[in-house]
């Protein structure tokens, strides 16, 4: 081994480490360890002066190995590797000892912490001695991008990337893009018509030369890694030829078969051949085989008869499309909580109890009631109650706050006041009006005469106790500001139901190897400083799939994710993990155990040589194969037996 000179740097991390660990003592101890040329301690190693300290020592003292005892490598391993690289030392001749998350942050005992810190530093010093320089490989970044989900988040991200003249594949599982936003009537606080602001963007997506739009499609398989992903997409059969159809809609008019409209939340109907709404992009209908008489009984075929362009194709089959992209943005959105299990609110039991999304459709001009706010029997309500926090801020359902409900409750109040003479009552716990123009909107609604009752509704009942309550739905609860039980008889109840993760979020997470936080939404890399990246390089998240949020925040995240992707595309290359595994083919017996174990499918069996070989570009250095190989033929470049035993020695000595 060439003359090894190790520099050891103990970080105080302000008081995070220094308050518990005696950094002076550890630093002095480190100076006594074998091959240590210099040992220092400093307040913030990751700062500029901290890094300069290392670079200076490398220059002056000819250091060829560096140990930094500070925080988790997840925080600053790249920082220090970069620093020593700048000073001319291979970034892999570096080791970090975590004396913060693994030491000072888990005990208040100073003596214990200092002893452990010493042991960790000793281990790191002995291990780094055996590190070898590794070559960092770069792979090109495929400039195409896959965006999963065609709601406002997906649409925004797609347009941002496509406008920079890079190709985007936008995959949406519904027959049209638009997501939940296209279901809304007006948006708070501006009361912009949702469709009016969204359809131009949808149109742009449909016409964009750089966007390949695949609707009624789902991603089935993803393989690869940042810069080169391969995806298999299933384009479900529409039974309508996209190249021939011109969206005239005659087939829809002539179809005699009906079904409940998903777009109208079951409140309205659509045909068996349908587009979900009039401004659908693409404006190409889809046949619902579960309600189409041809698919069920072999009859009808009216759509085929009347289509002048012969675009109906009952023989169509699902198509599998394979694409290659460099980055993926997940923008799969949210589901609305089903309040049926919350029996005390009577959803599903009483006719006139609605969820938020159902009420949106009622308000919408092209909804099931043509925008008239009416009860199930068609009459106008004289009073409406809006119940906040249904399934949100509630340990029994979702602990989190759904963020948008206070605002849309105000919006509904406005629409009800505008279109009817009804009294509006809001049963709230807090009024969360945090955004730009939101508090002003709240003031406006107060001035419009909306009644605010502070108290979480305990029950919605039809059991009247006096004449005034007969035939009404009575919302019961405590008015906490008046300290009295209140019974509010109303005609209509709107439940501000929680936003929850999509029902298949777990499967989608597995598909993309991204995790979810405890609340079930996709996990961001850092809640404050990295909200659109995930722990998987090259996979980004945007919009409500990361957590409930309003449209402005969704758009901001979508643009952020797009910017991240464009940065990678612009750089054009990605550095691969150099600390990978390698098979000694002389020792390999060809048993192939490693092939099946590799989570990244990086190992293949070479038939004519009867050995397995690792694809360095795919290998992430997880070490599973190293541990599993019965012949001991696989070594990990930074976890050799020498290195590991030295590390263990360091802890024990």
């Amino acid at each position, binding site marked *: 081994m060439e003359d090894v000179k190790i520099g050891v740097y103990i970080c105080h991390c302000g008081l995070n480490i220094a308050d518990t660990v005696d950094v002076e003592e550890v630093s002095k101890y480190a100076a006594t360890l074998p091959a240590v040329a210099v040992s220092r301690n400093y307040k913030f190693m990751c700062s500029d002066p901290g890094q300069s300290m290392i670079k200076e020592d490398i220059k002056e003292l000819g250091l060829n190995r560096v140990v930094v005892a500070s925080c988790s490598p997840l925080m600053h391993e790249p920082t220090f590797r970069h620093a020593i690289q700048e000073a001319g030392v291979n970034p892999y001749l570096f080791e970090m000892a975590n004396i913060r998350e693994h030491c000072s942050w888990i005990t208040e005992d100073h003596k214990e912490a200092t002893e452990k810190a010493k042991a960790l530093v000793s281990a790191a010093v002995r291990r780094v001695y055996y590190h070898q320089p590794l070559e960092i490989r770069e792979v090109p970044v495929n400039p195409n991008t896959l965006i999963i989900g065609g709601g406002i988040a997906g649409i925004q991200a797609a347009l941002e990337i496509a406008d920079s003249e890079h190709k985007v594949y936008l995959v949406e599982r519904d027959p049209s893009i638009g997501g939940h936003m296209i279901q809304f009537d007006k948006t708070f606080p501006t009361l912009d018509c949702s469709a009016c602001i969204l359809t131009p963007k949808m149109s742009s997506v449909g016409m964009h030369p750089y966007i390949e739009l695949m609707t009624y499609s789902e991603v089935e398989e993803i393989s690869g890694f940042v810069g080169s992903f391969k995806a298999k997409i299933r384009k479900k059969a529409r039974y309508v030829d996209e190249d021939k159809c011109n969206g005239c809609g005659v087939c829809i008019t002539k179809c005699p078969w009906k079904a409940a409209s998903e777009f109208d939340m079951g409140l309205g109907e659509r045909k068996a051949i349908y587009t979900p709404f009039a401004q659908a992009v693409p404006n190409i209908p889809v046949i619902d085989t579960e309600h189409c008489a041809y698919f069920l009984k072999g009859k009808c075929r009216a759509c085929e008869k009347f289509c002048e362009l012969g675009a109906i194709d009952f023989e169509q089959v699902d198509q599998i499309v394979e694409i290659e992209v460099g980055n993926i943005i997940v923008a799969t959105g949210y589901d609305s909580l089903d309040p049926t299990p919350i029996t005390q609110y009577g959803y599903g039991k009483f006719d006139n109890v609605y969820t938020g999304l159902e009420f949106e459709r009622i308000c919408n001009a092209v909804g099931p009631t043509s925008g008239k706010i009416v009860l199930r029997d068609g009459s106008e309500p004289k009073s409406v109650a809006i119940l906040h*926090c249904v399934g949100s*801020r509630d340990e029994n359902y979702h602990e989190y706050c759904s963020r948008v409900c206070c605002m849309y409750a105000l919006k509904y109040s406005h629409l009800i006041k505008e279109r009817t003479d009804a009294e509006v009552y809001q049963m709230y716990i807090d009024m969360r009006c945090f955004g730009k123009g939101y508090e002003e909107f709240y003031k406006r609604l107060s001035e419009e005469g909306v009644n605010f009752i502070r108290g979480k*509704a*305990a029950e919605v009942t039809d059991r009247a106790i006096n004449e005034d309550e007969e035939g009404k739905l009575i919302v019961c*609860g405590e008015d906490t500001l008046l300290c009295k*039980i209140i019974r509010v008889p109303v005609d209509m109840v709107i439940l501000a139901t929680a936003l929850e993760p999509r029902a298949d979020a777990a499967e989608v997470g597995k598909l993309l190897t991204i995790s979810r936080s405890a609340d079930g939404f996709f996990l961001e890399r850092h809640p404050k400083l990295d909200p659109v990246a995930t722990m998987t390089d090259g996979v980004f998240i945007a919009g409500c799939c990361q957590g409930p949020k309003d449209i402005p925040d969704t758009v901001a995240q979508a643009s952020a994710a797009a910017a991240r992707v464009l940065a990678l595309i612009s750089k054009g290359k990605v550095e691969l993990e150099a600390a990978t595994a390698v098979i000694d083919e002389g020792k390999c017996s060809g048993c192939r155990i490693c092939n099946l174990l590799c989570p990244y499918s990086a190992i293949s069996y070479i038939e004519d040589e009867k050995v397995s070989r690792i694809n360095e570009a795919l290998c992430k250095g997880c070490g599973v194969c190293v541990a599993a190989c019965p012949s001991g033929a696989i070594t990990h470049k930074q976890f050799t037996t020498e290195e590991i035993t030295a590390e263990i020695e360091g802890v024990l000595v």
Partner: protein
Amino acid sequence: MDVLSPYKEATDVILEAGGEPIKSCYQCGLCTGICPWNLVRSFLVRRIMHEAQLGATDFGSEDVWTCVTCRACVQRCPRGVEIIDVMRAMRRAVASLGIGVVPDALRISAKNIAGVGNPLGEAPEKRDDWAKDFKVKSFASGTEILYFPCCVPSYDPDVKTVARSTATIFNKLKIDYGLIGTEAKCCGESIRKAGYEDTFQSLAQNNISLFTNNGVRTVVVSSPHCYHTFKNEYPELGGKFEVIHITQYLASLIEKGKLKLSKEINKKVIYSDPCYLGRHNDVYDEPRKVLQSIPGLELIEFPDAREDGLCCGGGGGRIWMDTPKGERFSDIRVEQAVAKGADIIAVACPYCFLNYRDSVLSMGKAETMQVKDIAELVAEAI
């Protein structure tokens, strides 16, 4: 000028007595909205939490003793606040620190329990007298089941029929069971809820030693209150036994085909879920299964049943307190039962038995409405 300033010393008293849950309360008011007391008068559960948070609790108020610990509030609380523990903490502060006044009737029952081991103040030697003509043996090590009837069926002249019916059933089926004897004391569940923690600890130790020394493994109980404390509170004090409520036991015997009910009871029977079987311990189905196995019996439900069931008013130690007419939950239930056309109110708890009996009598419905424990009905149908 009536100005409030936070008085942390009072808050600390409640916190130390077990009132930590007040910290999680975010004052939504759901508890008040759902509390059955607000059907008959004003009882602001939420305000009591906030008063405790700021040390403004009025320890002399009757509100300290109002809660029946039915769990309707805890069940729905969005912050998971253990409101019953807070009520208990306030009462503990009064009972042990003497800050306020314990209601008379409760004080007497507490004295009885502490003195002679049962709330009625009866002689301990007479605890098993109900079984005189019933050939019930004493529990000994190796006996399969300990039958623990609860102080009320043991001593109350009317409610003795519950214990007797149970013994009848067990004897007919030749179940291997016994009574633990007159050293047994009250299970202590209710007196603990009333704030008498030391009394409870001493009762529990007495019973745990008694059961353990006699090799008790399985206890079958008639009262959901005994069920609750034996199952959930005795284990951390060293008493780990298998605890089964009589309705669960009967249901399992029916399922195994060991209990066959052949005599008809052609009545409309409405079942009242006891709070301590239902909301406290999730037992809703077994009692119904047993009733539905009785030939000719038509089981009907209260408008609020199962998780939404209305408390009879007996929990939290209130069984020993006076509730003025017009504020009795059991009166409301009797009205509901009459409206549903029921002939019999079926109960599975001695406190429900007492309350419904009293309500039926005081409302003049005794001619048309009967109150029967499930064990009684099964004994009639065997």
